[in-house]
């Protein structure tokens, strides 16, 4: 079994730290190695051609490429060796970049020794590789989109227009998300609902979209191409077909009044309510927590649409792909106690100001002091509330708050010329097309900018005072304003945790869902068949959310349009002669892909290759096709065969080392450790 070993320079990414020539000479002496070469860029055409040439001339039957993470270029090299006539699975990669040169930049000698171990491990495994075949399975072409905000709407419409059937599941009684609640949107100041409204009704009327509002996903089973999703459609207590959305008839007689969550608490609504006049579907909804069951709405409804005996309905759908567009939630400003939100009535949030400025909002477009009801003359905006703040655990920038405050300040300055508007900021971040010009326009409108992070707000005799250090003059100041607007940051929607756990989505340290690659795969999840769009994967502006929704739709189409999928042969299988029918594997399998029908049997299309069963089997009757016991043990023996004085990572598709090195962190050597 002649093995070819190729040590990649990757420009200076690897060769700048490791002694690649020494690695090459080391590899030459390893068992079964017929040839070892250095390549400048192994992934380039020249590099691939060299490998193909050696396969033909030296009859190599397995290849080791010591280069970057297999997550990046394993498909490239599999294609390359397949072209030369080898089975694509006769390839093993040693990750000497992310796991070595990038994380040990300041210790080249030790790093070179570690790279030798990684190459020795890869060669040991390569000697035990077996040819594998991909299995073809039929796929369901329908797509589930979770979240009916602007990203989910964009994804659903693109898919539906392309002829794919979409199930759109939204937790709230209406689609539209936060965008539907905003007033005008930057940097063009066009009316938010005017541009979104038509899209919302297009979703409602599209023959290829099945809309589930007021619904949640409760279960996800299966895998890429064939997911079975169960969910619940909560009772609205109103028949949406009969309800005409007139709302006055029922809400006027309703005796219960509660704060309206769609106005973020500044407006009120009845127990029977329409979220806002442009809601889709345009149907009232009864809040079961507020309703006292008096039945007046039932009597007053001209179409007999109110049904207080309605019950929740469960549904089950089959889809081939899932797009997660669960969005965000505003930072809870009460966590910044020093600003008195919730205690001082004149301290409000960006979203409350958005609703005040909105012509269909609770104040019909007026900026009023909540404590007096008078029009506010002096308005302060406090930036970075819940963002760039380690004290509450959010060190990230929420990206949109600077622009949102600039926009709201402009709207107020235009509506109330002469009013005193001040923005308290750390840095103004206006880094988009037309954003800097928008910032300059705000300055020209006479809006004041004070560089300060306000330390606290106090209330004296019903007036609020901001206390801060003006960092441009160094003075400590105390300034009165009529209202203070807290520019709250974006956090991941905590209601999305259920779906995230069902799908097994990874999270970033900031708790947003992680995409498969921070640059190259911006809308793909780590799980096959899962896509993430919009603010579910981090704070974003509306145009980017829309672009991501469309991108996720395109990726889903690419995945499903052929009607079949080639499965990676990562699955487990059972040696029936060894199986003792103990059923331990059935208990540990997270996919329920194993049945013991004397002996055990693995449904390889459902198996995701986690390997729990192989580790649990007491007689080693369950084998893994891609990471067999023998292969892993051979790697361990290779790693421990030489004197080791540094940690040796065992390759895992999701190894944190990959991202770790991208962040520029450095590992220090010490005692050995092996594991995955």
């Amino acid at each position, binding site marked *: 079994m002649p093995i070819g070993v190729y040590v990649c320079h990757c420009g200076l990414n690897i060769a700048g730290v490791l002694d690649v020539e020494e690695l090459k000479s080391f590899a030459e002496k390893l068992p079964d190695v017929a040839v070892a070469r250095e390549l400048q860029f192994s992934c380039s055409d020249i590099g691939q051609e060299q490998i193909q040439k050696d396969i033909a001339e030296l009859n190599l039957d397995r290849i080791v490429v010591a280069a970057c993470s297999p997550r990046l270029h394993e498909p490239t090299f599999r294609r390359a060796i397949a072209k030369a006539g080898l089975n694509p699975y006769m390839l093993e990669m040693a990750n000497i970049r992310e796991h070595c040169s990038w994380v040990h930049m300041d210790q080249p000698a030790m790093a070179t020794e570690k790279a030798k171990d990684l190459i020795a491990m890869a060669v040991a495994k390569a000697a035990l590789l077996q040819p594998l075949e991909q299995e073809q399975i039929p796929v369901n072409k329908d797509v589930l989109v979770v979240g009916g905000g602007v990203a989910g709407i964009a994804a659903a419409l693109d898919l539906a227009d392309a002829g794919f059937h979409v199930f759109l599941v939204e937790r709230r009684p209406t689609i539209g998300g936060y965008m539907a609640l905003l007033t005008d949107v930057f940097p063009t100041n066009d009316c938010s609902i005017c541009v979104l409204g038509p899209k919302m009704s297009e979703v409602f009327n599209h023959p290829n979209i099945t809309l589930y509002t007021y619904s949640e996903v409760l279960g996800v089973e299966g895998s890429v191409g064939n997911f079975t999703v169960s969910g619940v459609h909560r009772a609205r207590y109103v028949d949406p077909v009969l309800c005409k959305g007139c709302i006055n008839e029922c809400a006027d007689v309703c005796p219960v009044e509660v704060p309206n969550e769609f106005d973020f608490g500044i407006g009120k609504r009845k127990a029977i309510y329409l979220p806002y006049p442009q809601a889709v579907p345009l149907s009232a909804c009864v809040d079961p927590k507020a309703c006292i069951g008096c039945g007046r709405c039932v009597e007053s409804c001209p179409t007999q649409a109110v049904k207080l005996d309605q019950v929740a309905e469960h549904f089950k759908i089959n889809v081939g792909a899932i797009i997660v567009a669960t969005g965000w939630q505003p930072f809870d400003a009460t966590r910044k106690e020093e600003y008195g939100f919730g205690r001082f009535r004149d301290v409000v949030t960006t979203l409350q100001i958005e609703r005040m400025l909105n012509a269909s909002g609770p104040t019909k477009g007026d900026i009023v002091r909540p404590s007096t009801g008078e029009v506010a003359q002096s308005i302060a905006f406090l930036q970075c509330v819940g963002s760039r703040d380690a004290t509450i655990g959010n060190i990230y920038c929420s990206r949109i708050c600077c622009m949102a405050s600039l926009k709201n300040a402009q709207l107020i300055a235009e509506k109330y010329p002469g009013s005193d508007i001040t923005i308290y900021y750390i840095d103004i971040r206006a880094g988009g097309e037309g954003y800097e010009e928008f910032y300059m326009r705000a300055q020209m409108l006479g809006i004041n900018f004070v560089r300060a992070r306000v330390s606290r707000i106090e209330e004296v005799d019903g007036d609020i005072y901001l206390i801060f250090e003006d960092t441009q003059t160094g003075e400590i100041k105390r300034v009165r304003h009529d209202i203070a607007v807290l520019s709250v940051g974006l956090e991941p929607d905590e209601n999305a945790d259920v779906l995230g756990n069902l799908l097994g989505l990874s999270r*970033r340290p900031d708790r947003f869902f992680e995409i498969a690659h921070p640059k190259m795969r911006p809308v793909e999840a780590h799980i096959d068949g899962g896509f993430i769009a919009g603010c579910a994967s981090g704070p974003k502006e509306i145009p980017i959310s829309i672009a991501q929704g469309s991108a996720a739709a395109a990726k889903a189409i690419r995945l499903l349009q052929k009607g079949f999928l080639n499965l990676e042969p990562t699955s487990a299988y059972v040696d029936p002669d060894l199986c003792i029918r103990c059923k331990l594997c059935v208990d540990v399998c997270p996919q329920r892909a194993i049945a013991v029908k004397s002996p055990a049997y693995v449904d390889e299309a459902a198996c995701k*290759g986690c390997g729990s069963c192989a580790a649990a089997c007491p007689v080693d009757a369950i084998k893994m096709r891609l990471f067999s016991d023998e292969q892993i043990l051979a790697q361990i023996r290779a790693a421990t065969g030489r004197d080791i004085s540094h940690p040796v990572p065992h390759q895992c598709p999701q190894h944190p080392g990959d991202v770790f090195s991208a962040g520029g962190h450095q590992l220090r050597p010490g005692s050995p450790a092996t594991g995955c």
Partner: protein
Amino acid sequence: MCSARVDTSFVLEALRRGADGVLIAGCRLGECHYHDGNYQALQRVNVLKGVLERIGIDPGRVKIVWCAASEGEIYAQDLREFIGELKAIGPIGTELRKSKKEPAEEPIEGKSGPDGGRAEKTGIKAIGEHEVQGR
């Protein structure tokens, strides 16, 4: 591949071959990429630690930690801590010599034999092999 894929025999083989410790890193509890494999891994490590203790090997040589794929910094920190802990325990076999009250041998650094001569010198080869073959 999941942390639940880590067969106890892999860990024992690494120790038998002279690794001073084995670190297993899984997704955070409750956030398993597959479903609940990290809990299985945790159970297995706990059982394994008991076995190690009974055969006279410091259970601190095996550690399981949790970090998401994005949390490289946490992984590095865990690794540094583990290395510190292993340095305190000493090279593999230290505890066996202590329990037998034998005079301390020279540190295991030799390179004779296929495994660097570690196993023979530490005297844990037989124990490790027995465990591996016993599976």
